[in-house]
């Protein structure tokens, strides 16, 4: 059992006009961010409980989240040879969603429901991501695929790093660099 009240409380505090408009002092902004982060983490545990319950696994799986995907950081996809990905669609209609994950350079394979091979694309990270101040990550590339998600449901994918020389279904990417 996890409590979603931490996020409810944090969002309630953030209804204050200073939080809405950004007119709070810096140390208060830091505190708002901390409260929201704690609340989100508690809710993530609730989501994991829910996924474990509806997927009828034999024993609860310890799913994790990557909160820094916006700056292409995810220690799980960067450091694991094989990762199970579960995408939960909160919308009441089918969704085609592009998933973009940071990885280390190499050959990969993605399988979807029923072991079907999923087409994907691997692209080097932009240099402004690699040079981002304070960014600590091993990722050099990003892997992208299209996930088809059922309404109010989930789809599971498997991302596997192949041994050297393995057969990958990666699409060809070409890069042209120019000086403006």
């Amino acid at each position: 059992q996890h409590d979603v009240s931490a996020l409810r409380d944090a969002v309630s505090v953030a209804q204050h006009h200073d939080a809405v408009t950004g007119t709070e002092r810096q140390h208060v902004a830091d505190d708002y961010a901390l409260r929201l982060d704690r609340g989100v983490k508690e809710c993530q545990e609730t989501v994991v409980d829910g996924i474990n319950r509806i997927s009828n696994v034999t024993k609860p799986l310890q799913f994790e989240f990557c909160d820094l995907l916006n700056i292409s950081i995810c220690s799980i996809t960067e450091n694991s040879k094989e990762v199970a990905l579960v995408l939960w669609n909160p919308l009441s209609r089918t969704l085609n969603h592009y998933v973009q994950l940071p990885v280390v350079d190499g050959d990969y394979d993605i399988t979807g429901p029923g072991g079907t091979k999923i087409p994907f694309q691997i692209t080097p990270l932009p240099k402004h991501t690699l040079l981002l101040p304070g960014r600590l990550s091993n990722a050099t590339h990003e892997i992208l695929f299209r996930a088809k998600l059922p309404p109010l449901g989930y789809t599971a994918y498997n991302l596997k790093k192949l041994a050297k020389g393995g057969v990958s279904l990666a699409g060809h990417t070409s890069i042209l660099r120019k000086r403006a």
Partner: protein
Amino acid sequence: SGFADDDFVIKNEFLALTFDQSSGSLKYLTNLETNTTISISQTFAYYVGSVGNNTKEPLRASGAYIFRPNCTGAGPDCSRPLEGNGTYEIVKGPLVQEVRQYICAWVSQVIRLHATSKKVHFEWQVGPIPVGDGIGKEIVSRFSTNLKSGTEFFTDSNGRQNIKRRRNFRPSFNLNLTEPISSNFYPVVDRIFIQDETAGSQLTILTDRAQAGSSLLEGQIELMVHRRLLVDDWLGVSEPLNEPGLGEGLVVRGSHHLIFTNIAKSPRRHRLASHDLYWHPALLLLPVSSTTSQAD
């Protein structure tokens, strides 16, 4: 007309984006469903924040509470373009095509078109804003088109209806315009758009966070993406909007999603797109080891 032989194009079955070969900047946007092309540019610019004179009420500084550029002119002439001897990259693959623009040391952007997407993804990165010159800066991303939108534009109201805004005008009182730039900025919680009723076209931008936006010239949309100011505006916060972060200043990364289609189709298109963005899927990850089999 206007297309050059050496322009390059990224496209899918719905949209085509034409870029200038020499600068890597966006020139044209074509909706391939309606076969409509507009000229469009997307640039970054900054307003110099007023330092004011906080002993006198009408001369407040630009700060956390107020956006107040240090100029009296109207329109984008008041802002300074962000130009650098930048580079760009074109990345083409089967699922996504993108143009990466490295505009200057602290501003860069990826313009991305997914294979089956009806919207263009602009992922901008701004910061740390340099203030070594003692100038506070307020950075905007500006989309300029040839759409005949007149003086009107639309912004959302916190998920409720979209509200028509008119430049230099208030519906309930006679406006004595003393701040030609900031008086025309409105809150954009998640979308802003302009319409060309003669051409029947609409350009909509969905934001990933609440920002401020305006249309200071016909056919134009601008959104404020980052601010760094050095003087408190004396309205209560008692510190400048400086955010030194790690000591260098904050780097901000975010997204704008551009939708271009006809006016009739636009509400359905941007409403569904906003659902996709704001109720996006949750991604859970699990390293697969000998104890967690793939079957599980």
